[in-house]
């Protein structure tokens, strides 16, 4: 019980825990979860968010270190743009491979994750290494490259606001725009949408692939700009894979991604507190967290099954 109390306190127990631990951890998961959710909605199985995050972080860091003298209102958007652009290019490689040669994106994006990881470890030992050339990391960014904090005394940064806006835009776009409708159609049935709906399937999936990559790259920029202020090798402990769970738990709904990203952020923050304050071994914490995620999944599944039973299968699917 001590352990569970520590879990709760670490995630929601104080304003610091919520704003500076839970939401800071939720920020990359929000952007990455959106990246995965959008792609999956269009039937693009992009599991390369991890690699797209890495190249986004590299590009944003390169910008931050190259133009350190630029004013902050210019440099921060530039970093975000560079991160998103790099992520889109990285995803674009897999998108081109799929469109031109029919390479399954599950394989290509996964492979590109390894390439991106190798690229990151080369960059922090080569072109972006700190000046003493001892440690595998970049120098710390100048203050002009630090993303602004949203609240005084808290570590919550601009990246979270960007993520929130992106989620709402994505939701509106999917639900109320023609392009969003095309994405949903392609995801539901590519052949039918092409023959009956007149949708250019290849073009739609290509576009979604790039947007998905851009969101993941933006997550990388937001991590280095908002949290670490430097580029490191171990930047992401598999955030890109956790994001798949975030997106699936949200049933690929951008609004739901907000909630599930906060849930995973809270679990992560609470798990740390359990180790710190209740002396629970880290492996046991991982087991408990996995158990909670499974329980939440089972509960949401059960609810939709009940709803389906009440209203009939067609309603529930829509």
């Amino acid at each position, binding site marked *: 019980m001590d352990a569970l109390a520590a879990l709760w306190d670490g995630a929601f127990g104080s304003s610091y825990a919520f704003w500076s631990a839970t939401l800071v951890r939720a920020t990359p998961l929000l952007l990455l979860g959106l990246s995965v959710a959008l792609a999956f909605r269009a039937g693009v199985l992009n599991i390369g968010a991890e690699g797209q995050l890495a190249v986004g972080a590299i590009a944003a860091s390169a910008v931050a270190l190259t133009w350190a003298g630029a004013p902050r209102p210019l440099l921060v958007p530039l970093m975000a743009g560079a991160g998103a652009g790099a992520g889109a290019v990285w995803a674009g490689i897999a998108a081109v491979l799929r469109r031109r040669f029919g390479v399954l994106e599950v394989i290509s994006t996964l*492979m590109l994750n390894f390439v991106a990881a190798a690229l990151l470890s080369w960059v922090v030992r080569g072109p972006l290494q700190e000046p003493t050339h001892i440690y595998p990391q970049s120098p710390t960014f100048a203050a002009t490259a630090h993303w602004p904090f949203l609240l005084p005394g808290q570590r919550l940064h601009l990246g979270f606001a960007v993520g929130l806006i992106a989620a709402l835009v994505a939701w509106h776009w999917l639900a109320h725009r023609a392009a969003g409708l095309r994405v949903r159609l392609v995801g539901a049935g590519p052949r039918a949408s092409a023959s009956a709906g007149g949708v250019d399937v290849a073009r739609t999936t290509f576009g979604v692939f790039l947007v998905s990559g851009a969101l993941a790259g933006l997550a990388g920029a937001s991590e280095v700009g908002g949290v670490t202020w430097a580029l490191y090798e171990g*930047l992401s402990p598999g955030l890109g894979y956790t994001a798949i769970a975030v997106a699936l738990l949200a049933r690929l709904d951008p609004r739901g991604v907000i909630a599930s990203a906060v849930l995973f952020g809270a679990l992560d923050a609470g798990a740390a507190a359990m180790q710190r304050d209740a002396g*629970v*071994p880290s492996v046991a914490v991982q087991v408990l967290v996995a158990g909670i995620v499974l329980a939440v999944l089972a509960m949401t599944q059960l609810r939709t099954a009940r709803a389906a039973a009440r209203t009939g299968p067609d309603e529930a699917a829509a």
Partner: protein
Amino acid sequence: MSLLNKTLLGLINPIIARRVVLFHSIALLALGCGRPAAESATKSEFRVALLTPGPISDQAWNAAAYRGLERIRDSLGAEISHIQTKTPAEFEENFRQYGAKGYALVIGHGFEFQEAAQRVGPEYPRTVFVTTGGEGTGPNIAALSFAFDEPSYLAGMAAAAVSKSGVLGEIAGTELPPVQASFAAFAAGARSVRPDATVLTAYIGNWDDAGAGKEQALAQIARRADVIFQNADAAGLGVFQAVREHPGTWIVGSNADQNALAPQSALGSVVIDLPHAFLLVARDVKAGTFQPRVVRFDIATDVVRWVPNPATAGVPAAVQARIDSTRARFARHEFTVPAGRP
């Protein structure tokens, strides 16, 4: 095809590893049930926290640090807390949390914690932040520096003496500066005994994939390496396994005394006595006499040591005498590891 195979292996290996961890943790959970009550009963003013970059079950770098934390608890009556952290963002956040809770001493176990210490330190002046490795200091920030290259040099001398093929292997997790320095010293020590020695170096890419560690070891054995110096923490356990399966091959352990992991094949271990070092620092912090600085531990302090495996006395007497005299010269600061090719 082989690339695909490797990926699939890469996907499956962590799953297997996680299974093992899962089993382990259930056992730990059962064992840990009665503990929190006992800890709150012995509440103490002097609180010490440890952040490790990897699991404390690695029987190496992180395990030794946790033993150090336990020794601080047992010897100084400190209340202790430990957390395993992965990313720089987590380093900083946890430093902050411990600082806010008024811990007297917070140890980040690796050079990679020094940035976080620099950022958080000024906000919590009553907490002493110490990083194991690195050289960042401040009014309440110190770094422990270990001359791990000195005993590595001695290990290289011993390795060259017992090697039949003249090919030595080195396997580590990733290319970290202290590891590279230690490997260069091992190679230099080996060449001081056997100038024509060939040294193979491999980096696994992480510190926890025992399967990949074993694969690297088998590859080096296939290239006729008959002594392997491993410094890969949990992944190094795979190197041990490969060596145990190939009699006639020797292994040199790292960080903790790992000789018991392969009683028949261990030549010795290059040891950092972390518990001793931690205790020395914690004692000063508790007494209020700690001077924040780079605290250097070399062979003279006996915190870093070359510990031969008594069960396998394979080093010829003439070389052993040279090892002993080199050790003595290190201790008197008359000799430093020569800079050379790795």
